[in-house]
């Protein structure tokens, strides 16, 4: 075996990817060639440095939450209308959101009694925004686990800078913030996580008497509406209703 042939096979030799006959030939050449042996130790060193220093990352919990929420949405769509999603596979982000929004609109059970909360259109739009936020790249415009980054980001972008309490110790880490368009205006959306689920809180100024939280649900998602100090709030998520209620209590503190 020539040196050039040996060197071309050194990586496969190190990786145990050579058939035994070639492996034996390389081993034999290495035994009598100092140059190729040095080359071998370079390859081994590079390989072990890469193994040692290249990070094997853990997928962040927020990513897992985004994926499980989005797949839950897909499942509820495909259970009802498998052909529609398949045919529109190339348009999947918009198609999936659109189908889900259409189904949700048809299936919303409006248990809300409040004057403002009885407005079906707003609940639909809040749910549609939540579902859209689960699509890749749509969750946050500002991504940060620190409320001191998220809250100032809204200044000048919306009429009212939203509440961004630190709820990490209560089990609801902050994910980030986003702008949405609801009821004909740009509104603030603040995103929290709960284990593998996401919670969106939409809020905007709206004059009127304070209203206590009221819960409704559609298609596996839960919505809580309330108003305080002339601000209207909507929290929406696929967490258990009890968890969302507890989240709203913490958020309102």
């Amino acid at each position, binding site marked *: 075996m020539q040196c050039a042939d040996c060197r071309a096979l050194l990586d496969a030799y190190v990786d145990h990817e050579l058939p035994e006959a070639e492996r034996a030939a390389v081993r034999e050449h290495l035994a009598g060639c100092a140059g190729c042996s040095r080359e071998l130790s*370079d390859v081994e060193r590079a*390989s072990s440095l890469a193994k040692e220093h290249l990070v094997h990352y853990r997928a962040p919990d927020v990513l897992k939450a985004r994926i499980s929420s989005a797949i839950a949405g897909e499942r509820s769509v495909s259970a009802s209308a498998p052909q529609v999603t398949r045919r529109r596979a190339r348009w999947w982000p918009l198609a999936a959101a659109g189908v889900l929004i259409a189904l949700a609109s048809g299936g919303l059970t409006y248990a809300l009694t409040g004057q403002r909360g009885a407005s079906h259109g707003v609940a639909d739009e809040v749910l549609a925004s939540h579902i859209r936020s689960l699509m890749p790249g749509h969750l946050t415009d500002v991504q940060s686990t620190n409320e001191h980054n998220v809250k100032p980001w809204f200044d000048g972008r919306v009429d009212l800078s939203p509440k961004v309490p630190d709820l990490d110790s209560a089990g609801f880490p902050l994910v980030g913030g986003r702008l949405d368009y609801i009821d004909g205006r740009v509104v603030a959306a603040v995103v929290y996580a709960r284990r593998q689920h996401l919670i969106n809180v939409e809020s905007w100024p709206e004059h009127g008497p304070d209203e206590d939280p009221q819960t409704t649900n559609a298609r596996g998602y839960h919505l809580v509406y309330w108003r305080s100090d002339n601000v209207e709030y909507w929290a929406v998520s696929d967490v258990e209703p009890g968890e969302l209620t507890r989240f709203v209590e913490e958020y309102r503190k």
Partner: protein
Amino acid sequence: MAHGTADDFDARILPHLDDAYTLARHVLGDEHDAQDAVQDAALRAFRHFAGFRGDNARAWFLSIVRNCCLTLRQGRAVDRATVPFGEQHLAIVRDDDRADAAAIAHSDRALVTQALAEMPVEFREVLVLREVQGLSYAEIAEIVGVPAGTVMSRLSRARRRLASKLGVTDKEAS
């Protein structure tokens, strides 16, 4: 066990999210882009899982992740080329990442990371798939869509770049 059911998807694809994120993170070099690519890939995998008949769900999923990464990279390149001025992208505030900061403080790790970042993406992906994920040449070939011989030559060139990067520094240090 029947292939391609929803329960199968949870059992056969979701356990590989760490690997998927690791590949995306190294290929794209940005945590937010990596999250977007992996989410995109997971949804695509979910939609096509019913038609998947192979045995190696990890390699199948990672090939989708890789394609999503490359698509996202191309989109980014177009953005940079066609959007010269103005606030086209909303600001991203990044939190301090203590793990990264600690890693950078370690010189070998910093050099390896830097050498990886400077490589063409086709070297970078084979190095990560081999050294971090421990995949065989045949699996890497399937994911990347090239013959196993090409995997070997790319891996070889990637390691030589790494060796020369660290070798040069050793001489400077002594």
